[in-house]
């Protein structure tokens, strides 16, 4: 199991550790209600170092990545990020990939759900300056309405000019660190790629600023429910339960005009099918129990859906779920029956995502 480089720092904060696909992660730091409050009202720092991280030479890497990833990597401009995914040859989802073009190289951050080495072996096959830096760098993320001001305090006011899906290099104690603007909660969100050599000092400085702004720390549980609330795809939740990228709603990450990418034959074939299911967000009826993974959803006694991701949203005070639905019923604002233990039945309602109105929307205009 790949351990967290900053484990001691997180342990000192009282973190509870878990693992994702054989990689150590922080599951909780504080009470989840407190974590959620910090994220939605100020900012929350989370360790995403369990994600995979790779460098490629810019010149050859761009052509190569365009042949394997679903999106159009050739259109990626310097200083920007492309959000796409890697599929297996059978078309099933393998990893969400952020590709950044910066500093004469490409940086690929992969949310890899594979239990084997498919992602590493595929990405290393291009002979284009591939380097797996997963164990050499930490990846921290900061999300919340005050995240932008906190990052400005750290790196300077220039960061206010960084648009969504962009990347910039900054020096920290003489080491190159990379700042990505690619949040997945609906609020301002940044990721920091920091070499292990200065990671400890970087964490201390950043966390000091976060606390001074009234923010806090969170684990993956709060980060992931915030993605659900914010309407963002989560490879580590629904991505691990639904194999088909089209059923995951990832069409926007695909360039259908490309001749080929890994898994394209099967994905193009699937695109013509009328039987594709769709993800739908559900909220439980007030007073009814939390959703469970695999729970079935019904209309008039006929199953129309199955829960693939769920959790309690402290921001909304609601039990939420994502369910994979028969597309004929995959619409918002309808009531469905739940499969509950014993004789009891409950209702749930399909709702539109994003479910939260992020405070960053109003903060941005200040």
């Amino acid at each position, binding site marked *: 199991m790949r351990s967290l480089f900053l484990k001691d720092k997180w342990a000192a904060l009282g973190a509870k550790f878990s693992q994702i696909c054989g990689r150590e992660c922080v599951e909780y730091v504080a009470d989840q209600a407190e974590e959620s409050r910090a994220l939605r009202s100020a900012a929350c720092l989370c360790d995403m170092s369990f994600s995979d991280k790779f460098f490629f030479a810019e010149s050859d890497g761009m052509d190569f990545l365009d042949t394997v990833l679903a999106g159009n990597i050739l259109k990626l401009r310097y200083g920007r990020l492309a959000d796409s995914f890697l599929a297996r040859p059978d078309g099933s989802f393998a990893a969400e990939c952020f590709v950044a073009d910066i500093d004469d190289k490409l940086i690929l951050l992969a949310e890899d759900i594979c239990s084997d080495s498919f992602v590493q072996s595929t990405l290393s096959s291009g002979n284009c300056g591939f380097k797996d830096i997963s164990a050499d760098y930490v990846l921290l993320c900061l999300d919340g309405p005050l995240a932008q001001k906190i990052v400005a305090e750290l790196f300077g006011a220039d960061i206010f000019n960084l648009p969504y899906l962009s990347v910039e290099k900054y020096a920290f104690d003489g080491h190159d660190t990379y700042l990505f603007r690619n949040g997945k909660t609906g609020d301002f969100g940044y990721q920091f790629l920091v070499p292990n050599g200065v990671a400890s000092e970087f964490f201390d400085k950043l966390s000091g600023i976060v606390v001074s702004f009234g923010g806090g720390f969170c684990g993956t549980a709060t980060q992931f429910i915030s993605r659900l609330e914010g*309407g963002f795809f989560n490879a580590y939740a629904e991505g691990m339960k639904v194999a088909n990228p089209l059923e995951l709603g990832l069409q926007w990450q695909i360039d259908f005009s490309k001749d080929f990418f890994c898994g394209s034959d099967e994905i193009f074939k699937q695109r013509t099918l009328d039987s594709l299911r769709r993800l739908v967000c559900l909220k439980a009826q007030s007073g009814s129990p939390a959703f469970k993974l695999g729970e079935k959803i019904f209309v008039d006694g006929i199953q129309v859906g199955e829960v693939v991701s769920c959790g309690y949203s402290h921001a909304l005070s609601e039990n939420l779920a994502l369910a994979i639905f028969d597309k004929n019923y995959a619409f918002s*604002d309808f009531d469905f029956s739940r499969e509950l233990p014993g004789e009891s039945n409950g209702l749930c309602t399909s709702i539109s995502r994003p479910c939260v109105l992020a405070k960053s929307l109003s903060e941005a205009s200040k």
Partner: protein
Amino acid sequence: MLPTPENIAKRKFITDKIKEMLVRNIDSVRYLPEDLHDDVALVGSGLGLDSLDILEVAMFVEGQFGVKLSESNLAALRSINTLADFIEKEQKENK
């Protein structure tokens, strides 16, 4: 609301019209209408519409559904679904 065929058809009509418009009128949206998930983000991540595209969407919503988008309800433009919610709500209130 119960998912009866009539109720679902009403909702589907709105989301289908929005998707058809996005594919027909917005150059950067190079998809088929059926490729677009109802929760896909319109700006930022997702379809990445710019301010001119958003103006186009607002004009379409007013022309097609008789519903006016103003600065105070721009949050409706977060996804196809949130836009459809807004159109349904406004249509009910204007009846």
